[in-house]
């Protein structure tokens, strides 16, 4: 695996990690539920053809406790705008997953000139009463891996403390990631993003794990129908909600093909 370059930017007074790897046109990555406690093979795949820039989001691993000062959705979006500017992502294509994908969509709606193409995996933000997403925060601990990934072991490995990590602070950081997601999306995951989808003109790829047990596949159609720009939906066989963890090569190939188009 590559060792990315690590930079630090200031977001609302909090030191925030930005990883950078590869070469070529810039591509931003906003991580999904749980964030990125460690680098992952999927990012190596993206870095084969692009300069991948991976800023942490407030409260997610690498994002310190920045979530704690963000009280409203507007606060979050302003933080995302700061991140795009300071991480050198202005005008770049953006990819993201789950909770991060939702914020990439918001950025494209509010600051269309700052965002190129969008490649998104199962974004949060909508809520259909008749087909609700699974509540990720009301789960027994041992059920979570199987909800996030088709192969629970993949999630477990992502979250397992690396050798030499702090056995107290590591688990707290993982809870904080879940809390940060809750701070934006509690209780339903509904940010009323449907009101802003019509502002999004960026060409958008919507990827969905065939075995997504959090966000029903029908949400792909709802997002596609709301977007003003062209939207393509692709399903990833054998993948769960965080498809990039289950099927890194396949997801990266779909994204590369879409961006090259």
């Amino acid at each position, binding site marked *: 695996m590559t060792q990315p370059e690590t930079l630090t930017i200031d977001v609302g007074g909090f030191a925030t990690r930005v990883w950078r790897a590869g070469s070529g046109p810039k591509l931003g990555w906003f991580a999904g539920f749980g964030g990125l406690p460690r680098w992952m093979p999927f990012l190596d795949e993206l870095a084969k053809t692009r300069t991948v820039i991976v800023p942490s989001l407030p409260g997610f691993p690498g994002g310190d406790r920045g*979530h*704690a000062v963000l*009280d409203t959705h507007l606060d979050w979006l302003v933080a995302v705008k700061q991140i795009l500017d300071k991480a050198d992502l202005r005008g770049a294509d953006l990819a993201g997953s789950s909770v991060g994908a939702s914020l990439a969509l918001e950025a494209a709606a509010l600051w269309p000139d700052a965002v190129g193409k969008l490649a998104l995996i199962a974004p949060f933000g909508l809520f259909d009463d008749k087909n609700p997403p699974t509540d990720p*925060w*009301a*789960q*027994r*601990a041992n*059920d979570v891996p199987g909800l996030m990934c088709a192969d629970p072991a993949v999630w477990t490995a992502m979250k397992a403390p690396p050798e030499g990590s702090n*056995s*107290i602070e590591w*688990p*707290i950081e993982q*809870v*904080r990631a*879940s*809390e*940060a*997601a*809750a*701070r934006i999306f*509690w*209780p339903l995951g509904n940010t009323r993003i449907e009101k802003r989808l019509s502002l999004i003109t960026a060409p958008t790829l919507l990827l969905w794990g065939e075995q997504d047990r959090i966000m029903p596949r029908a949400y792909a159609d709802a997002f596609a129908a709301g977007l003003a720009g062209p939207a393509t939906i692709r399903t990833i066989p054998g993948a769960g909600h965080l498809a990039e963890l289950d099927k890194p090569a396949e997801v990266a190939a779909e994204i590369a093909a879409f961006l090259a188009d």
Partner: protein
Amino acid sequence: MKLMWFHLMPYTELPEDFRDTQPSVWVDIHSSLFDPKRAHLMYNDFMDELEYAAEVGFDAVCVNEHHSNGYGLMPSPNLIASSLARRTRDTALCVMGNSLALYNPPTRVAEEFAMIDCISGGRLIAGFPVGTPMDTCYAYGTNPSQLRQRYMEAHDLVMRAWTEKETFAFNGRFNQQRYVNIWPRPVQTPHPPIWVPGGGSVETWRWCAEMSYVYCYLSYYGYKAGKATMDGYWSEMDKLGKDRNPYQAGFLQFVGVGESRQHAFDLYAEAAEYFYGRCLHVDPKWATPPGYSSEGSQRAGLESQVKKAADSSGRVKSNGERIASTAREMQGIVDNGYVIIGSPDEVAEQLREVATSLNVGHLMLLLQYGNMSKDLCRYNTKLFADAVMPKLRDIHAGWTDHWWPRPMEASMRANVPAFTPKLAAE
């Protein structure tokens, strides 16, 4: 020593196979299990029981707030307290309490508590819980990542609403009100005593110490499990250089009094097993919304795990651990100290030990629990009042209770006759 009588108001007719057929007593308990016509009788029995406890001489009657909960039928304890204000004379009314962050705007709490304080002539104890995860984050949908910040702000707003003389603007992070000026105002000045029920978080202990509030540990797991928490509280008080005044603490304890230990065991087994078996059947998925436990509390919990404290009861357990390890048979319930049973002398002896070893001046006693019948509840209550209470009065005699209501003089208070439907009878 203050002896207070606490009612949870459990639904008493949960089916026998509840544990096996239902997911949880809380949050998603099924509506088909609730019969409003049976609940009519339960509420009236429960309110009779509270009034009876006041009549036989308990220092206070206590009610609390739960939502979507099969063992706690008081989404609004204030409704019960206002009725008790009319049906009792001198007993303190302990509302334990209103979960501040759930009220929008939180001035609602300032208003309703002021109403109860006025109606009762200044007998209110104002409890300010954060509230459990089940009540706050799930049943009421409050964001767990904001719950404590909202609680603290609501506290500040309520205190200002009670104490400031002029109309003011509240410019909070979560609450903005241009004109705060509550009518009525509380009888007690500057405000009713504040008691804070909480789990074992260092932040809560420190806050109670600094604000001079009563810290209460309302656990269903008795004095043996509660010792670690109360020790933690007092050690924090020591660190901050505060007195060990036992009246700055409250503790909840289930009790069953009989003629002998065996008699009590037999009398209360069904009710206790109903409570620990059916009422505490909570799905662990509701136990830990992220952000509900502060990082300081998480750290303390993890550190004590890492140290592998030789005695597992020597540390504060998480909600999930508690739920998983609860004893549900009477023998285990008694052995673990969840319920203290015995003859009056035996109960008095054990409670003396609880009050002194935990250094608690306010014992909140659960003498009704589970599906206990009204008759048995009255028996337990009366026997306690007659034969246990007098043996405990002297405990902590050297200390002054600065956290007890200061009602209006009795001669100044309204004469509130019991309800007598004369016209209907004529």
